[in-house]
């Protein structure tokens, strides 16, 4: 391993402009990838994990310049390109056409869906050989020989050269896609969920094939997945992405045994464990990933975090605090519709006792947000009841004001910085800001 990493991504951003009107005036941007940085050493596999919509695939296509990144640097020190000339830039985002074409020889990609990643009107052999042709190998027989050898390497037979994609199974097609990614002998392969479209039974085969080839040819790999158990098998290091940012990065072993970000913790809790005696800590993330157009302030995960920080003035159980914040967000963003709930509850005749109806409505609203009948902190309980009263009376403004003022978490006010936990393990959470371990953090009082 050289001292220089093969690939260094620095503060990479990809924003999709949102335009409006005839003149395509830009009114905003979807910040799909919002400043990510990581390194991949030679021969190393970095896993990039996260929910769908968190920007993993966009990160991949921007790094490999299938899409133009908005800003940032992608420093690539390929085996060949480093030798070419010292004064030429090695920043992929600044490559001109000729450099980019040379870069294509060094970095290739495997796509998620094997059934759509091969041209249905070309034999699989010519699909693979086309890369050789594009890069100037004009001898047809030579191309054929190389590709046939390679097809055998990935577990197919040389005679498959002349067959069409529809004659293969999904796993076989992914082997062909792997052959296509390999045929130019690249240094880096970006694998965008290469096994998630495959049968579970075939996954292991493809993964071990990828592993073998990687070892044999010393490939570096950026492995994108939403499946933590696959990542655990394949990757040397893992970067966890949430809403366009990397929230935690570190060695796989370290991440899996000692996660330092609540989001990682939640992802890991979803991995099935074969040991029945080991109690599973089931963390359920509620809601969906917020829109990247308007990401939450402070820590982007605070809207869903189960460890969201309570300020000192409250003394609530953690789950209650989470529910209370959800309730507050519901009221402030007006996604909570009191009138509809009232209508739904009205089963009997309209001239029912108003007080009874209101009480039922209050109870229903609490239940909707998993709030207990009384909160463990009396001060908080009083504020909550007051805001519920306002809501029932139809005074939205007052309720919003009251809740927004009373229940505030530091997580939404302050953006956390990366904290180093040693050995390249870094996380981005207020709880670990002072290098404290997440597990010893005081916040999670009771679950």
């Amino acid at each position, binding site marked *: 391993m050289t001292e220089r990493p093969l690939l260094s991504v620095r503060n990479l951003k990809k924003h999709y402009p949102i335009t409006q009107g005839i003149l395509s005036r830009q009114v905003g941007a979807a910040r799909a990838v919002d400043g990510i940085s990581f390194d991949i050493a030679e021969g190393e596999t970095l896993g990039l994990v996260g929910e769908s919509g968190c920007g993993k695939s966009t990160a991949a296509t921007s790094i490999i310049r*299938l899409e133009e990144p908005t800003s940032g640097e992608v420093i690539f020190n390929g085996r060949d390109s480093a030798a070419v000339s010292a004064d030429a830039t090695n920043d992929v985002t600044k490559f001109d056409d000729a450099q980019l074409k040379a870069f294509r020889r060094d970095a290739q990609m495997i796509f998620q869906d094997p059934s759509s990643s091969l041209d249905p009107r070309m034999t699989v052999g010519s699909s693979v050989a086309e890369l050789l042709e594009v890069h100037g190998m004009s001898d047809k027989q030579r191309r054929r020989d190389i590709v046939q050898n390679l097809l055998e390497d990935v577990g197919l037979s040389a005679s498959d050269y002349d067959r069409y994609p529809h004659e293969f199974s999904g796993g076989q097609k992914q082997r062909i896609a792997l052959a296509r990614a390999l045929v130019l002998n690249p240094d880096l392969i970006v694998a965008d969920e290469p096994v998630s479209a495959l049968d579970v039974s075939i996954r292991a085969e493809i993964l071990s094939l990828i592993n073998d080839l990687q070892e044999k040819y010393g490939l570096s790999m950026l492995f994108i997945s939403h499946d933590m158990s696959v990542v655990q098998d394949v990757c040397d290091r893992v970067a966890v992405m949430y809403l366009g940012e990397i929230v935690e990065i570190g060695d796989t072993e370290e991440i899996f045994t000692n996660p330092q970000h609540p989001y990682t913790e939640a992802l890991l809790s979803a991995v099935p464990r074969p040991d029945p005696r080991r109690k599973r800590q089931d963390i359920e993330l509620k809601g969906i990933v917020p829109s990247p157009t308007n990401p939450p302030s402070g820590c982007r995960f605070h809207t869903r975090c189960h460890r969201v920080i309570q300020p000192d003035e409250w003394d609530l159980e953690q789950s209650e605090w989470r529910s209370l914040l959800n309730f507050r967000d519901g009221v402030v963003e007006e996604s909570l519709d009191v009138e509809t709930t009232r209508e739904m509850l009205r089963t009997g005749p309209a001239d029912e006792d108003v007080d009874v109806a209101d009480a039922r409505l209050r109870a229903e609203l609490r239940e909707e947000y998993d709030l207990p009948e009384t909160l463990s902190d009396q001060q908080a309980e009083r504020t909550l009841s007051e805001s519920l009263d306002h809501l029932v009376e139809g005074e939205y403004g007052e309720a919003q004001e009251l809740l927004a003022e009373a229940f505030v978490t530091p997580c939404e006010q302050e953006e956390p910085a990366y904290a180093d936990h040693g050995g390249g393990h870094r996380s981005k959470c207020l709880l670990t800001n002072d290098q404290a371990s997440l597990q010893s953090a005081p916040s999670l009082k009771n679950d």
Partner: protein
Amino acid sequence: MATKNTSERFDTVDWDEIAANAPDGNGTSTRAYLAALGLLAVLFVYDLVVASGEATFAAVGVSYDVPLFHWVLAFSLLSFAFLGLLPLVRNRGHASANFAGIVVATGAMLAVIIYDGIYLANAVPTFSAIGWNYDVTGLDYLFGFSLLVFAFYAALPLYQNPRMTSYYWSEFRKNRPAMVSLVFLAFIFGVGIVGPLFINYPEAEFFRKYQPPVFATVSMNFVLECVGQQANGVCHGTWDYPLGTTNQGRDILTMIIYGMQISAKIAFVTTLIAIGVGTAVGTISAYAGGLVDEVLMRYVDIMQSFPTLILYLLILYIFGADLTLFILLLGFFSWSGTARYVRSNALAKSQEEYIKAVQLSGASLYRIIRRHIIPNTASSIVTDLTLLIPAFLLAEAQLAFLGLGDSEIASWGVLISVGRNDLSFAPWITLAPGIVLFFTILAFAFIGDAALDALDPEAQAEAES
């Protein structure tokens, strides 16, 4: 470098050597071609606008006025040199059979054109030197070129990919009406292309007018001289004129065969232009996107709202009715639908992962469009074709029927309109070409249906679900 190719592996390829041996990019030749075209266009405009009354090069003291034929020839030779010959020479040894074939064949044809147009100066029939009295017209050359394109880029690929072809064929064969239609069309176009080369155009024999078809009869009141049996004042048809004769005594069967050639010319040439321009505009529009897309598609809007018929009438009054003009006009004003159709298909295809994979291979835009987008939109192009061709044939017949066609030629439309006044007693003059036209168009409809199913199994699945 591995000496034994069979043992060469991908990880031992010396890319630096390949890069060193690779031919130069064709960027310069493209630029040279565009520059030459631009120069030609400037000269042409100068000839039209500035030197309209005098010889083209009068300003420099050369009294050579360039005729239209030379303009077209210069353009053809230029395109042939830069788009055909130059790439062929550069990639000698590696060029595909299709490309080599079409370049060589087109070169041969251009040689004949030069021989015909410059050496013979169109004074004597083209092949009189070998004793064949067949004069080739400009439209024939266009027709020949479109046949070459068809042979090398539609027929030859089918032969080159036997497995794909047999799959399409087995799918296509399931549709029986389409099979019958295919045989019928092959007959129509085959006879149409070959027939007129050997059969003379029927002479007007006034005394033999209104001969009925075989097995039919006509009252002797209308016939001057009955070739067949006469009985009870009725003239019976004979095998001499299987489909009867016209009011000028011309054999209708021979005229229909000549009409087949005209229909084939309309079908091939017009379609070549429409599909060529439409596919180019459609794929470029889909792939370039942004402003290019916007400009091209708005132009398509303008063209679709352009009254082609009125333009045709205008040209008709200025230059007179001419089949070549009609075909060119039809071709250059009917690609808009194809362009839009191809664009939407190409847009859908360009989102597929295999296109991303090809982009990632470093392939040029031209290559992506030529090798991946167009083959994958081919099924929609073929189906579009089967709608376009009947529309062209009908358009010609309609204009001819209205008397707006080229009355010099024996198209089916002209023949139908000739029999218009004699419908009461000699309906075969109109009926015979009418029926052939009807079945031709029906055949295209059946074939289009079957081709869609065979080429695009997904569309079939969607239609059935």
